[in-house]
Each structure stands twice: as structure tokens, then as C-alpha cells.
């Protein structure tokens, strides 16, 4: 049952950023040595603040951006050996903003059937029927087939984007903040739909989100990203109930559940997200860390296995940490 559909081994993506006129370029490590395994049928949530490299990672997994270093495997085959069309049949994205992810000049029908056209599908006479099938599956009325995106509401547009992603029955769907541009009441409809589709079509999701309440609801596994590295990874339940990394703890502490008896939490994280061009030495989280120890300034933490995944934090290098882990 536990077959891996997507695996990233030690992938890195470096951008060269010019630092001013005549001053040459400096490397920006957007993704810095990430290991990630996506098992069939799971929902892996990737969480972290903006600028942590989630979007770059997602682009690499979609084959839109080659990694500078490391290997990516899709269904056991190296991503580099697959053509764009082959990748597209296995992985598809759903974007955050349904107002920008649909071409305003195209009808709903031609947006949904584009994947069939691109894949050179043999039988154009069945396209309409197949589009209508998938539209029904995602809860779109058939009569919008000839309408344009501007005629639909935000929720409907997101359903169109989902239909386009799913018409070729991919195995992995990368959802980049799939509901954060939508109203609360529409958001729940789309989340329900994603859950249903996962069961019905046997999909695997990689979900990128900053809404931790949504993540906790949807995810089976969680990977927490900070400055280009995954600092903690594990089963959703374990991570939510017993976060190991101080950053995960702070993230979870900043979730605002609708509970009027609680005030606004103080995360003690400080306002400054570090400049990725000028990374802190040692553990990159140490300037904001509540549990910073003297050695964190020099010593970069290494991955330490936990119950269900791993954590990168110097706290667990010694016995004290191991005790905490097992408790």
C-alpha cells in the first residue's frame, strides 16, 4: 500500500540575485537540501511563512523548474527522463487565485478540454462528454460549458480549475493555497470537494497552505519549511499534538481558533523574517528561537528521526531532547 508516487532526494534550487549595479550576483538558496516522500493516497501539507521556498519547491515537483542539485522521482522514474506531457499526466496543480488561473478569453469548455487537446487525445468527439462528466464530478452545472470565467463566481471558477486539473486523471495534485482566495462559506465547499475527489479518484495531495486550521483538517502528514529546509516532518496528528521544533510550536501557537475565551497569542517570534540572501549562521532559526542555546549560533542542526518523521533542531542532539521526544 505504501508505494511512493513522488520523491525528492536532497534537492536544492539556487537563484542568482544581482545585488546592485557592478556588484556581481549572490546566490539565494530558495530550496536547500529538501528530502520529501509522497505516499500514494496521503495528503502531505507543506507549511511555512511566505518566502520559505514552498512555491519554488512546488514548481520543481511540477517539472516547471529544474533543481540545481538533487534528484526528483515520479513513480520511480527520474523526473528528468520524462517529457513535459508525461509529467503532466501524473502531476497537476491547483492554484490559489481562480481569478488569475483561468484564461479570461477562453470558454469554460475549452479550458477544461485543453489537457485533452494538449495530450493529443485521439478522439475529439468524446471531449465534450468527458468534460461534462468531470464537470458533474466537481459540481459544475453543464450549462456553463459555453460561458466565460468572468461570468462565474469565485467558487465556480475554482471548480473549473479543479476540473481542468483532473480531466486526465493525474495521480498527484499539488494544491497551492486552494481556498485562501475564497469566502469562508465557499472555502468549506471546496475543501469538502477535494476530500470527496481524493477518495473517489484515489488522489494524492501535496497541499501548500498557511491556514493551519485547514491543514489540520485535511492533512495526513505535515512538513514544516523554514528558509528553504524542512525543519520538521511527521504524521499530522503527531506533529499537531506534540510539535518538536520550536518553530512548529510557534506556528501552531499562532493559529487563531474561534474561541472567544482565549486572547490573541504572543508568539515571541519577532517581526523579522530573515533575509534569505543573508542567512543566519548555524541554525537558521536561532535569531527568532525561544529555546535558543549557545551552540545554535554555530552548529547547524542535522535531521534527527522522530516517531513518525524527522526534526532538525539542536535541542534533540543530547539526552535531554531524547527524553522529551519519548515523553
Amino acid at each position, binding site marked *: 500500500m505504501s508505494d511512493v508516487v513522488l520523491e525528492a532526494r536532497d534537492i536544492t534550487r539556487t537563484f542568482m540575485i544581482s545585488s546592485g549595479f557592478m556588484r556581481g550576483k549572490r546566490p539565494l538558496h530558495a530550496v536547500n537540501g529538501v528530502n520529501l516522500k509522497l505516499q500514494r493516497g496521503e495528503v502531505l501539507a507543506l507549511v511555512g*511563512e*511566505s518566502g520559505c521556498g514552498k512555491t519554488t519547491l512546488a514548481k520543481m515537483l511540477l517539472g516547471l523548474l529544474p533543481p540545481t542539485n538533487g534528484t526528483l522521482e515520479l513513480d520511480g522514474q527520474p523526473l528528468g527522463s520524462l517529457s513535459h506531457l508525461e509529467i503532466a499526466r501524473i502531476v497537476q496543480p491547483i492554484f490559489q487565485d481562480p481569478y488569475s488561473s483561468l484564461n479570461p478569453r477562453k470558454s469554460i469548455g475549452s479550458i477544461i478540454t485543453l489537457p485533452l487537446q494538449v495530450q493529443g487525445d485521439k478522439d475529439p468527439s468524446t471531449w465534450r462528454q468527458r468534460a461534462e462528466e468531470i464537470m458533474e464530478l466537481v459540481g459544475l452545472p453543464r450549462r456553463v460549458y459555453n460561458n466565460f470565467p468572468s461570468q462565474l*463566481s469565485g467558487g465556480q471558477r475554482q471548480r473549473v480549475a479543479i476540473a481542468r486539473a483532473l480531466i486526465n486523471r493525474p495521480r498527484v495534485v499539488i494544491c497551492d493555497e486552494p481556498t485562501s482566495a475564497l*469566502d*469562508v*462559506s465557499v*472555502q*468549506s*465547499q471546496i*475543501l*469538502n470537494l477535494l*476530500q470527496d475527489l481524493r477518495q473517489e479518484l484515489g488522489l494524492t495531495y501535496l497541499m501548500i497552505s*498557511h*491556514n*493551519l*486550521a*485547514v491543514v*489540520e*483538517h*485535511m492533512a495526513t502528514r505535515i512538513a514544516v519549511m523554514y528558509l528553504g529546509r524542512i525543519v520538521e516532518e511527521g504524521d*499530522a*496528528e503527531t506533529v*499537531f499534538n506534540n510539535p518538536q521544533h520550536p518553530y512548529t510550536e*510557534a*506556528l501552531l*501557537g*499562532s*493559529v*487563531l*481558533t*474561534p*474561541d*472567544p*475565551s*482565549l*486572547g*490573541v*497569542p*504572543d*508568539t515571541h*517570534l519577532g*517581526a*523579522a*523574517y530573515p533575509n534569505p540572501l543573508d542567512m543566519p549562521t548555524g541554525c537558521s532559526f536561532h535569531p527568532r528561537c525561544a529555546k535558543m542555546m549557545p551552540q545554535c549560533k554555530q552548529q547547524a542542526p542535522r535531521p534527527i528521526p522522530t516517531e513518525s518523521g524527522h526534526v532538525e533542531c539542536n535541542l534533540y542532539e543530547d539526552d535531554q531532547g531524547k527524553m522529551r521526544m519519548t515523553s
Partner: protein
Amino acid sequence: MTERILEVENLTIDIPVPSGILHAVQDISIHVDRGETLCIVGESGCGKSLTSLAIMDLLPKKAIRQAARLELADESIFGISERRMSDIRGNRMSMIFQEPMTSLNPAYTIGDQLTEALRRHRKVSRGEAKDRAVFLLEKVGITAAASRLGQYPHQLSGGLRQRVMIAMALMCGPDLIIADEPTTALDVTIQAQILHLLAELQREFNMGLILITHDLGVVARIADRIAVMYAGQIVETGSAAQIFTEPLHPYTRGLLDCIPIPGKTQRGAHLGAIPGIVPSLVGQMPGCHFASRCPLVDDHCLAGAVPLFDHRDTNRSIRCLRADNEDTQKISQEGVA
């Protein structure tokens, strides 16, 4: 004895559109006391942002604003000249917008923008204004405040910019701050910090605060009182505890069912949903605005406009004919179970 900062009675905003009149905001009455936080919550298009713009008299020109009463600290600010209004705006009440990048002028330094309002409204020297700016930047948690005065907005991160916006809103020591989705564009960690800061400053400076948001988590944590808006109307008001522990209006209940609550909602289970869409506000709408999506609707709901009733609990009102009878209680219990 609390002091009333803002009193709005029967505020109505109509916007002429090609297909008729858009009744964007209908008959809104709200009030804010000194030291109190009122949250206006609702989905996009419900009129919550227009309400705040109407209070600041910053509506687009073609919008028609009407009100029975619009008073800031017992002084009417309705129908006064633009000149007097601009004396009040940024001085006795100020506003914080969602997108700090677009509300700061990229061509001027932080220092220029912070001191400008104070120097315009009060007769203070450049030095005094600068001192106040440094004082407030430190208050909003910005380190090395004095050196920040010479920086431009693009040199700051999103969280820092929003802090600068808050400092700017506080420059003249206003009685009332209106914050329109102040944390929506920010990361979760920064969001918590900014809200924390807002709540702290409000207590310290003893101001009234109106927070406009769609995020029920934010509302629950920061609000003293809540007004829930739907399709241009207030459908329910009450204290935060009242609204969240015992929501009465079917819309409020539907909204609360829609969001996953860690620890409460079963993981992976179906979330609640509100079927249907928000009705068009163009033209007259007989009956309850929520009728087309309401599970409790009956003939009475469609017969005529539904007024905002005072509820038997104190300081609470609800715009629904059906929410408070036995039937409803039964359904709401079923919904929970």
C-alpha cells in the same frame, strides 16, 4: 461609566449602477465605546468595508450616503464640510487598510509620512513630531526606530509596514481606529503579532476600535462585541461569547459550521456549507435577505422586510423571524450533533 465614541444610526449606502440602484448597505446602526472593540464580520460584498468608508466619509463619489445620526464623541460628523472632515480624519479617527504597501506612499520616507498628519493637524515643531514618531515606532515594536525614519516603504517587510501603518494611525492620538482586514495580507505568525499589538495599544491608549474582517478566528480572539453582516444588513449582534457559544441567526450558525476548528471538527470530516449564492442587492428585495439560502425559511420570512429584533439576552439583537422559537433550537441541536 463608559464614554460613547461613535454612534451610527440607520446608515444607508446606495450606489447607482447601470441596472438600477445597488442597496449596498441598509439601515446599519452601530456604536463603539471608549476602550471597546467592535468587530464587523461578513463575507466579501456584504457591505462591511463600505460601512467603514462611510464613517470616514471616504466613499466613492457616486455612492449616496444617508444616516439618521453619525456622531463622533457626541459631535455630528454627518453633512459637515470636507474641510472640517479632513480635520477629523487622521486626527480624531484614523484608518488602517489591508494592504500596507499600497497605502504607504513609496516616494516619501517613513518619517515624512508619520509626521505629516501630526504637523498638519496640530501645531507642533518638526522636532516634537519626530519625537512622537520615534516613540510610537518603538511602541509598535520596531527596533532602531530613529534610524527607520529615513527609510522608504519598500525597504520594510510586510509585517513592518503594517506596524508603521498602525503607528501612523496613532500619531494624533485618535479616539477611534478603524482597521479594515489589517492582517489578511500577512503571514499567520505576523498576523498574531499585529493583532496582539493592536489589542495592547487599544487598551493602553483607551481608544475605540472597529475591526473589519472575514476571519472568524480573529474575531473570536479580539472582539468585545460583534456585528455579523449579510447582504448589506446587520443580521446579528452580540458579545463575542454570545455569538460564538450560542449563535442565533442561521447565517452565523452556517458560517461557524464552515470553518474547521482544530480539536473540535473531526479531521477529514465534511464541513458545513451554506448552499446557494448571495442575492443581488440591485433593486428592492422583499423579505429576509438570507431567505434563499436559509434552512428555516417559511412564508412569513418572504412576506416583508425583517427588522432587527432586540433579543431577550441583554445587548443582543437578531434579524430573524425563526431563529428563536423551539423549532430552531431543535434544528440547531441536530446541526451540532
